[in-house]
């Protein structure tokens, strides 16, 4: 599985970010480069999981305000700063969904669904779409998040683990179980 270059950082990029973070810890005005760099990514992440774009924009602002407020507590753990932002975004989302479940939406491209089939060595036909949709909708929230992270957004396990605040091994195990679950369900598609 290829990794989405959006979520991959070279050591140089990570170091560059660290310098900005340290500066922004002293002076919030210096947070600008990180805000500009990740605004679109965070918005897309949030909007990908809901239907209302205005709410997504509001929530994006909320995420960055929280990030700025908590920046002095930020500690580098070997993953890009974005992972920390995604975790804040994830927590914000979960908090909102706890209160307003109906806001949750799943957004995927046909390509993503095709990709899921391919990953499970199953052929993809457009007629399968409703069945796949149904199948995915039946997944519980945690599993669905993993699918979104891994199949729709193609994030590395290390980053998924960071966002969900679990270990990388745990993330892999969870993913393995989901794949097994999906395999079973997808085999039914042939029937």
């Amino acid at each position, binding site marked *: 599985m290829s990794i989405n270059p959006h979520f991959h950082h070279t050591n140089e990029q990570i170091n560059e970010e660290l*310098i*900005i973070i*340290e*500066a922004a*810890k*002293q*002076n*919030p*005005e*210096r*947070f*600008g*480069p990180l*805000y*500009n760099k990740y*605004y*679109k990514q965070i*918005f*897309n992440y949030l*909007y990908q999981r809901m*239907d209302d*774009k205005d709410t997504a*924009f509001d929530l*994006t*602002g909320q995420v*960055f*305000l929280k990030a*700025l*407020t908590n920046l002095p507590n930020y500690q580098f753990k070997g993953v890009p700063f974005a992972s920390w932002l995604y975790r804040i975004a994830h927590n914000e989302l979960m908090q909102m969904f706890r209160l307003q*479940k*109906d806001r*949750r*939406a*799943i*957004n*995927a*491209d*046909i390509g993503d*669904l095709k990709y899921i089939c391919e990953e499970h060595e199953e052929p993809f036909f457009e007629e399968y*779409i409703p069945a796949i*949709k149904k199948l*995915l*909708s*039946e997944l519980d929230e945690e599993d*669905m998040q993993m699918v979104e992270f891994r199949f729709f957004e193609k994030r590395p396990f290390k980053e998924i683990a960071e966002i969900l605040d679990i270990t990388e091994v745990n993330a892999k195990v969870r993913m393995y179980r989901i794949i097994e679950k999906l395999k079973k369900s997808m085999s039914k598609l042939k029937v």
Partner: protein
Amino acid sequence: MEPKFNIDRPKISDEEIKKHQNFEQLVKQFKQQSLNKARHDKSWWKSKKVRYSAVIAGITVICTISYLTLFKNETTQNKTHETLITQDTKKENTNSKKNFISEPSQKLKVNYTTYTINNAKGGEIKHPTSSKIKVPKNSFVDKNGKDIIGDVTIEYREFHDAADIIASGIPMNYDSAGTKYTLESAGMFDIKGSQNGEPVYIKKDKTVEVQLASANSDDRFNQYYLDTVAKNWQYIQKDNANTFLDNNHAKKEFDNNQKDGPDNFVKKSPKLQILKNEIEVVIPKRIDSVKIVYTKKIDAVPKPKEPSKISKPTPGRPTFKLDGSYSEFPELAAFNDIIFEVGPENNNYRKEMHEITWSDVKVSEGPIKGKNYLLTLTYRKQIEKLIVYPVLSGNDLEKAEKKYQQKFKEYEGFVEKRNAEEKRLMAEMEAKQKVYMANLKKKQDDYEKERVKLLVAFKQNEQKQLESSFNNMSMATKATRIFNISSFGIYNSDSPHGQPSGKTVTPMFVSNEKGTLINPDIIYMIDHKTKTVYNIAFNEGFKITYEPQNDYTICVFRQNKLYICSKNMFKATANKNSDKFTVNELAEGSDNLSEFKKALEI
């Protein structure tokens, strides 16, 4: 409840996302949130404070009652209270001043020079920069307005460039009716007066004249006084640069340098003195001595004597024929019938002389040796002297002719030989003199070259001395700015500049050596074009605004360390449109004022 499932939902455009992207709004929200938090904390503190205040107030009341009971002297009490208030106010003022004027580093101090002046006599203080402080008689009073008796200590220091200004910690911001400016200084000074550690004040009707030496002779500057209570510069009046005094000074400096003059400078050169001695004394002496030696040598060469030719008698001239031997005169000895003809020069000759039988006749050498003779005739007491010439006739004449021819030949050979020897000696002398002359010429050339070299060196040295003098005297040579001050404090000759309107960035400073981020405590930015120093404030987010076409240097102070982003480094960042400024740490030991000035390239 199952979530809604969308397939291929239209994407939000980048433009729309960008529209919602507003970092300034985020920072505003963040600041507001921080402010609210602080208010909340403060209100909590306040409530605590109220409780504590009540306790303190209670204790104070008890103490005061006890105090009043013990000491009933009201006057003393009031006085003490007054003193306490004065001290507190003073302390407060000092603190506020300290905060307002905050030196960024203890190592970059601009030190005060201390002078003493007698209040009753007054006088003039000459500062090393050639600034002058003129103090009239009885100018100082104490805090009660009483004339100071005795000496007053004047502490004085000047600030002339960006390094001095940064080191002083004196803010150069100027707020005029709400418009913010940064002041470009043509010279600033800080003056204090005290006696035994107690401050003194300038008397109401007196002014102290400060003639500030300035590097800038422009007349676009104003005079300002730093009001440390209002925390702003107060305009005094238009400043006038007095260049006349300065020109005199420059001339004086120049004259001092010229005092010795190039000729004296050249004359003092030991090398040139040696050369001059060789040219004027040593070599001419050698040439002369050669001449003397060879003249002597030539003289020593034997000189041939030309043989005398004995001729036949002149018709009509009287002659004497003498008997006797001429052994004394070998040239005459060979002849038998020799006669002597009386020369026409003998005015004493008389015919009668032939009639007298002379008792004694003597022939001796005549005035022309070998040619004529002196004939002395004596008879009793009569003595006659005649110059006579020997003449021959007959066989004697032929014989004499032959002998003469032979002798003359010998003589000619001798003369030729002598001439050859003389010529040889002359050639030898000339050859030796030629060597000395060549040496003399070389020495003369060397002398001229050395002289020119020394003159050039003198000129260059003079130029250097002048430049150095201009620089060392700092500003004295360019203009004098006269301040009539009626109180001690900080005064400045300034020209206000508006804030730059070019590019604004929130800079990050990265150490060139370690690659680590430097979080500044204080930032100063120097605009080399306008010669202004910007103190970049933290409360404004440490933002800098610069004109891309100008040269800047940034100084970052962090935990007693000084980092500098040089002109080139600044330019490199500005050209890249980056906000990451590379800085070099000013090494330990180099963090003094003079090294700081070098590092700032001013």
